[in-house]
């Protein structure tokens, strides 16, 4: 994937530059020129509605650039890409809204490395939490069952909930 990104970036220039408007789901716009590949993540135009906001776009862009640079090597590349990944997720993904949007966008664009990072981050949110805390964190208000059914479900899972 990283090599494909690097090659795509080098091959990106279009014959005629066109102004392109990326309109995100929340209404934000971003202007880019197709003859300047550095303005576009992955080096080609993307389907903007799959990205919810300019902030998410910026995160995808940063991730793609750093990984493409690391794949090329050279003086500007980060020495430890795994450590950079961890720092990136810790620094940039600070709320579940952003985590959700980034996860969806990374998966849609088939950025597998970033998708795995988001899955792990989501799993880490769930670890060592109670049921109520997990509901609040994941923003789940409609559990899809009545309180009696919910009680029965917890009862059925008693043996697992008691695991150390």
């Amino acid at each position, binding site marked *: 994937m990283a090599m494909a990104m690097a090659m795509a970036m080098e091959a990106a220039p279009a014959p005629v530059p066109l102004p392109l408007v990326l309109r995100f789901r929340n209404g934000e716009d971003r202007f880019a020129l197709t003859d300047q590949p550095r303005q576009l993540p992955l080096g080609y135009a993307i389907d903007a509605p799959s990205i919810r906001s300019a902030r998410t776009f910026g995160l995808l862009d940063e991730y793609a650039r750093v990984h493409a640079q690391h794949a090329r090597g050279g003086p500007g590349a980060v020495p430890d890409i795994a450590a950079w990944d961890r720092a990136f997720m810790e620094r940039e993904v600070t709320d579940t809204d952003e985590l959700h949007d980034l996860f969806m966008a990374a998966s849609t664009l088939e950025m597998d490395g970033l998708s795995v990072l988001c899955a792990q981050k989501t799993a880490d949110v769930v670890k060592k*939490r109670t049921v109520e805390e*997990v509901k609040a964190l994941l923003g*789940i208000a409609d559990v*899809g069952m009545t309180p009696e059914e919910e009680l029965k479900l917890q009862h059925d899972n008693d043996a697992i909930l008691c695991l150390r």
Partner: protein
Amino acid sequence: VGFHNFMDFDCKTARGDSSSVNRSCIVTEGTVVQAKPVSHNGKAKHWNSLSTLNNQKCSYELLSDPKKNVETSDGETASKCDSWCFTDLPSALVCEVLEHLDPKELGIVSCVSTLLHTLATDHQGWKKFYCERWGIPTPPVTLNGPLVPGGTSDWKSWKTLFVEREFRSKSFMGRFSVDVLRDHSEDVRTVFLLASVNLIFTGGNDSVIRMWDLEEGLLIDKSRPLCCTIRAIAADTRLLVTAGTNAFIHCWRAVEGNSYPFHISGNGTDQSPEFRLWGHEGPVTCLALDSLRIFSGSWDMTVRVWDRSEMKCVQKFMHADWVWSVAPHGNTVASTAGRDAYVWDIRSGELENVISNAHYGNAFSLARTHLADVLFTGGEDGAIRLFNVSEVSDDEDIKPAATWVPHTGPVHSLAFEYPWLVSASSDGRVALIDLRKLLTPRKSSKQPFRVKNFDPSSIEPPQRMLHGFGCDLFSVAIGADRIVCGGEDGAVKVWNFSEALEIEKRAQALRSMRQENRMRRKKAQVEMNANGRRSDQCGSIAMKRNQLKGDKSVTWHSKRAINDKVKS
């Protein structure tokens, strides 16, 4: 680049998925004329069909403050029209997240909503959890058939198997009774527990193999004298192998049609299922079986591998000292000789790892788990050590990841059944060590499990000691809610923990009933307070949370009741 499927879970169509599209916030055509972007993959279009807005009451806060979230969500009345729920994610992504969770976390997630419950009970994950701990279930469990349409019975089976087995593994901290089986006239040097058919095999200085019924504690059969001390026994449902000081391996094939698979009291005619394997040049001290091979270790400083279909030696591993123990797993076999431990690759015949000076004195015993990189050794110094023998440590001196010193005499035998490591010693005692916290399978890391980084010289207490009758113990086995050991006094002791299971089942039923009544009363109280202030609701939620935490503790009855039932 195709999408690489990291998931082991089968992704099912989530019933909670909504295909309705609310386009009120999507820019309609004509508002802005823009060049059509080239979509690099088709998933974006599929994504558009998902629900974009919902009026569910949602609340997002900082990830680091979940308790504040709980209070805030309770006070939240207006829904944020631009917020998301994680259940909006496609099932494939939710399954990818669940892949990173362990059994307890899956249990919690499955209580959150019906959608997550459906995904979290996917049976492939539970099968993996089971097999990582206890291996493939033995034949009496009639499972592993093709998936039933709908998959209901299959996923219940694997999850139920896991829950039941986890429940049973706790019984070793509970009440037990002790049976003493007497028929040996001299030391019992080795015991073997074949749990799948409820048999115990024992051998010792009197050179006679004895076969006992596990449930009744009765002697079923005994061999004629084999003219040497019996030092090792191994068996499965098709083959029984024994060996001792006279260098040969004496074997019996299972016989169909009888109430017991083995008939060991024959007279040794050519028509009997009995036969011998020759090749070792010194006393054979240890035996092990897998489905294809027999492994034997000897004081002639070799471990030999015998092919079970041809019954001939196909491999020989040379050691620098007397071999004390042998333990195969997958394509490797571990052995101890002198004070060192070794791991060999069976196919290539090459030595994969050497653990030099595993103990001060001889390394007498060995045990492995279903996680291939874990090795336990017991030694003459009374210590038990855990080694991580992954490939990474080839060029380095391997240090123990954990050490226990529960004994004041040599550790002659180790046995393992998740999460319990059991040891028997010349100090006349059996130690039970709970390895649950050490052997925590983690899928997210490169290694299949995580061994906590301990100070190599750290000493941890065992969870339980079972006291014998003051004599040397030479061999121990664990299985079927029982621990079996044999020793110097010629007695075979069986600690039976199945009573603890019955007691705990009754206690659990009572606890569940009380909890259900308590939550019903809380619910009624919440309804009564529906007209009251919000602070009351916050309080009731806090009480619920405390309740859940309180219910997590499990107390087992640990009163000891020793019943000396002498059976002959």
